[in-house]
């Protein structure tokens, strides 16, 4: 089964839940943990798994051959990311940081003065520990789009498919393209939240998104004993989405987290029992 761990708000405990679930599942069946929080991947730190780089991720960018360029400015006109600056009478100027690699300039150029080359946008890492496999994506700093990096990691996993029984996908915070790309294709999403008005507000956003994407959802309340649990229970009722686990605030969890070992608590086992 392909399960995403998400939640909307940052810092609610997505990575703790992802790593703990993967740890429990891998005891019995072949499990892959995919860290698709490519902006700030941390699952390897939480589990102290040493990762090795297995692949660079590239994105296409245009290459200009000015000997063919007639300074018409078409490339700049079709570029929606403002990555090509054109001033009348001059050759177009390319800003690689802004380019998302759509290739529209290359298609539109009337004199075929633009071909394609590549720039690096991320890296894929692989590691093993506690009987599970870990694949994580890491975006190059300063690059804008998390989505293509996430998709490249998913593609890599698809190609090197090792017959996993379970795949746990850890997403970033928020509801943007990187999160949407990570969620797509999942059979279930576990939304980790906290019992505060912020947790509640952002939980509603992610439940709305999952609804639009057609992915069934379940709720996990982290730090369930501090704050106001009723806030989340109301959302559970409103969205007819079951709360399948509550994890109280515990020093032992915080300790495991800061030491880099998986969190082993009965609450996590309970979540798996409910899921079965």
């Amino acid at each position, binding site marked *: 089964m392909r399960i995403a761990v998400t939640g*909307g*708000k*940052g*810092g*609610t405990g997505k*990575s703790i839940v992802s790593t703990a679930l993967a740890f429990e599942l891998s005891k019995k069946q072949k499990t892959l943990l995919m860290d698709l*929080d490519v*902006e*700030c991947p*941390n699952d390897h*730190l*939480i589990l102290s798994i040493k990762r090795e780089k297995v692949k660079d991720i590239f994105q*296409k960018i245009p290459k200009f051959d000015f000997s063919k360029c007639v300074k018409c400015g078409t490339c700049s006109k*079709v570029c*929606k*990311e403002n990555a090509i600056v054109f001033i009348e009478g001059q050759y177009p100027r390319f800003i690689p940081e802004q380019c*998302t*690699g*759509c*290739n*529209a300039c290359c*298609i*539109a150029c009337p004199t075929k003065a633009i071909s394609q080359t590549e720039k690096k946008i991320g890296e894929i890492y692989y590691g093993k520990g506690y009987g599970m496999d870990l694949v994580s994506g890491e*975006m190059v*700093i*300063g*690059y*804008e*789009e*998390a*989505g*293509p990096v996430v998709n490249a990691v998913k593609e890599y996993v698809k190609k090197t498919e090792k017959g996993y029984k379970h795949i746990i996908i850890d997403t*970033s*915070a*928020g*509801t*943007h*393209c*990187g999160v*949407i*790309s990570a969620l*797509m294709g999942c059979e279930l999403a576990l939304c980790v939240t906290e*019992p*505060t*008005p*912020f947790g509640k*507000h*952002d939980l509603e*956003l992610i439940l709305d*998104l999952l609804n*639009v*994407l057609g992915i069934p959802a379940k709720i996990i309340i982290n*730090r369930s004993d*501090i*704050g*106001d649990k009723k806030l989340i229970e109301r959302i559970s009722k409103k969205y007819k989405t079951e709360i399948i686990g509550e994890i109280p605030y515990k020093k032992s969890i*915080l300790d495991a*987290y*800061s030491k*880099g070992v998986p969190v082993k608590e009965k609450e996590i086992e309970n979540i798996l029992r409910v899921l079965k």
Partner: protein
Amino acid sequence: MRVINILSGKGGTGKTMVSSSLLWTMSRKKRVVGIDCDVDAANLGMVLGVKITRRKEIETSEKAFLIEEKCTGCFKCVDVCNFSAIEKGDKKPVFNRFLCEGCGSCELVCPENAIEIKTVKNAWITEGASRYGFPVVSGQLKMGESGSGKIVTEVRRTGERVAKENKSEIMIIDSAAGISCPVIASVRNTDYVIAVSEPTPSGFNDLKRAIKLVEFFKIPCGLIINKFDINKELTRKIENFAKEKGISVLGRIPYHKDFVDAAVNLKPVVVYKKKYREIFENIAEKIYSWFE
């Protein structure tokens, strides 16, 4: 006007708590404006009790739409899409609107002019006054839509106007978690960045990534360590890292249940409990003296 950006890399380190408390603290001496650029999940307005006075729908996203009757099913569009947003259907291509970036490559390559790029209403921008008097501008991405970076740019443009109307001296921008397009758009062209970190391996790792981003844009930066007392050894390591990077430590905030209670009561912690005022007054003073 001086523009301060609050970021962290890792989510949940306390960006909104710091933004709201710093806004309240600074508002006692200066004219301030708060901007919530976490358009994925905007929370700043909630904690500041903003009464919305203006609400505007914006279109900063474009998507491709198929004109069915013109399409002959040549599938050239499928091959050209670099975002995997077009799949071969039975007879005609199928467009996935969640993956479409609206780049227009498919429109350019379509021999039948059967593809149209249309703008999409993808966000709301709201303006209003907080219960403490100062103005706040927020953005909120619509569900399943894209273009967070461009929305942030639009939110900041509105923020600039509101700041001018209010003769604001200081603008505080609360960013999203992570370091991708919405954060980059929030950090660009600011005068000072405050990084909020926590002493956990993830907090430290993500701080390093966030600082690299700030260095990329060459913006001066200060650091606040939240929950510094949950792991004092790691706090020391973070402070050493800051020293190496020439980043000044603006303040340390302890871990206490008060912060959760303040959040549940939707109040900045400095309003909820007076004893935290000193921490933020000191942080504000350090920032003022930096600006001088």
